[in-house]
């Protein structure tokens, strides 16, 4: 007989004993602060064009230099943090909502409902995401909202499978049976007993998913299909820097590193959460 123990402190305890995990956690906390306080932290207006100051290398007044239009790269990166985190979080929230609903219903209902929903998941998984993304963007036009929606709508299948698997085993557990004998309705069983107990692995998947969503957003923006200039995102800063690649390394390296470090931090924290859950 297994006793499950939910010890929130086990996760945080590990943060202290694992320096890499702790660093990744700090990076994410720092990014979140930066995103929230970008208007106050940024030294310049990220949209402020000043052709007299174009393509300046990093210096005391422009720590990361300026772009071909004379905009401050550091300020643009800081505002880009907002876009990237927002897209990542909202896209993953959409995916988690849809995935949890589909997975919980499939796992709980079983039988034909389960078969139909899971085949739908297979179809979605077999569908090439990038074409779907391009088609939808071609139809609706590139915007940050379309990006969030499309990344979310193509990313829920993994969550659905996870939640279904959890619900399948949870619904046989005694406390679920017990609350049924005490008169709990199907809705209450799902929302109070099954879904909350299935959230551990979903949290891990969501953390990893945010990293993936940020990467997708950067790629789309780099291709000019994502966040539209002059609004800065890490991907389109890279894209704008592409033309001056030979002369201005400071347009490419900082946004590239920002993407790398952020995505890496999400993956490390995601893995850390997975370990913490496995350990309990």
């Amino acid at each position, binding site marked *: *007989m297994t*006793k*499950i*123990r*939910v010890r929130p402190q086990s996760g945080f305890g590990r943060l202290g004993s694992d320096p890499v995990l702790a660093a990744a956690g700090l990076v994410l906390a720092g990014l979140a602060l930066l995103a929230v306080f970008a208007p106050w932290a940024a030294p310049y207006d990220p949209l402020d064009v000043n052709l007299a100051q174009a393509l300046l290398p990093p210096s005391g007044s422009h720590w990361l230099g300026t772009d071909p239009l004379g905009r401050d790269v550091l300020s643009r990166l800081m505002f880009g943090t907002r876009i990237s985190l927002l897209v990542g979080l909202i896209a993953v929230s959409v995916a988690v909502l849809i995935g949890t609903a589909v997975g919980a219903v499939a796992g709980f209902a079983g039988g034909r409902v389960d078969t139909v929903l899971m085949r739908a998941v297979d179809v979605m998984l077999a569908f090439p995401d990038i074409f779907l993304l391009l088609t939808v963007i071609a139809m609706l036009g590139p915007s940050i909202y379309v990006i969030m929606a499309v990344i979310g709508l193509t990313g829920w299948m993994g969550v659905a499978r996870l939640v279904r698997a959890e619900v399948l085993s949870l619904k046989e*557990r*005694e*406390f679920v049976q*017990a*609350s*049924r*004998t*005490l*008169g*709990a*309705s199907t809705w*209450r069983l799902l929302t*109070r*007993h099954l879904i*909350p*107990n299935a959230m551990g692995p979903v949290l891990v998947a969501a953390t990893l998913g945010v990293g993936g969503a940020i990467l997708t957003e950067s790629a789309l923006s780099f291709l000019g299909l994502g966040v539209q200039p002059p609004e800065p995102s890490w991907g389109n800063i890279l894209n704008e820097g592409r033309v001056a690649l030979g002369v201005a390394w400071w347009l490419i390296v900082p946004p590239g590193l920002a993407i790398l470090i952020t995505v890496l931090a999400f993956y490390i924290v995601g893995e850390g959460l997975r370990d913490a859950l496995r350990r309990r």
Partner: protein
Amino acid sequence: MRSDGANLLAVDQLSVTYTGRGARTPAVRNVSFTVGQGEVVALVGGSGSGKSTVALALTRLLPPDAEVEGRVLLEGEDLLAASEPALRRARGGRIAYVFQDPATSLNPVLTVGEQLREMIEQHTDQRGRAARDASVEWLGQVGIPEPERRLGAYPHEFSGGMQQRVMIAMALAARPALLVADEPTTALDVTVQVQVLRVLRELQQRLGLSVLLITHDLLIVERLAHRVVVMDRGEAVEAGDVATVFAQPRHPATRLLLESRPALPLGGAHG
């Protein structure tokens, strides 16, 4: 304390047959018994005798491949003929269950207070503050120290005995007409068993609870029950007052159960 007036529960010719995979497997055959108001009736028998099946059949909690026949009259109303919404209100609200293993019967991610309040809000008209106060009171009733403080604790922060007290509190908080206790102490340490039994007996006497006690342990029957129904291979083979049945067992299954009882000086039901 014991009133032999109207029967609270009358089970009449109850049969359960499993029909899975083409084969018909009878699990319970023509079982009849009654539980009076304020009475404790024990359903005893070895493993596989069908006693737990009877308990679950009362509110049609068996899997869909189980065929249930007969009548289950609770306060005169046949539950086997009741609609699904009426049954759901009856589950927990009119017939509440306490199961064997409290460690797995409580939801690990909700606090004890949340789970109690849920029961109260679902089955009584107390809401919010009143439901919270009622939760505190029920935790106190089952002998949990500092009930106010323990409301915010999670199930794993309780010992096995305390968890079972919480389960009892949850079952009783809905003010059911009948409490079904299915092996309520089997998963507990022997010393804890005694404490939980004491709580059950005290509550039964103080609140005049009607209890259907399901167990294979005759010591528990002696301590708690007024009447006993012995089941063997799906049939009720012997019934009567605890003292009478234990003094003069007539059916071999009853004798077997009595012989397998450890000889401990624990005293009688009402001593």
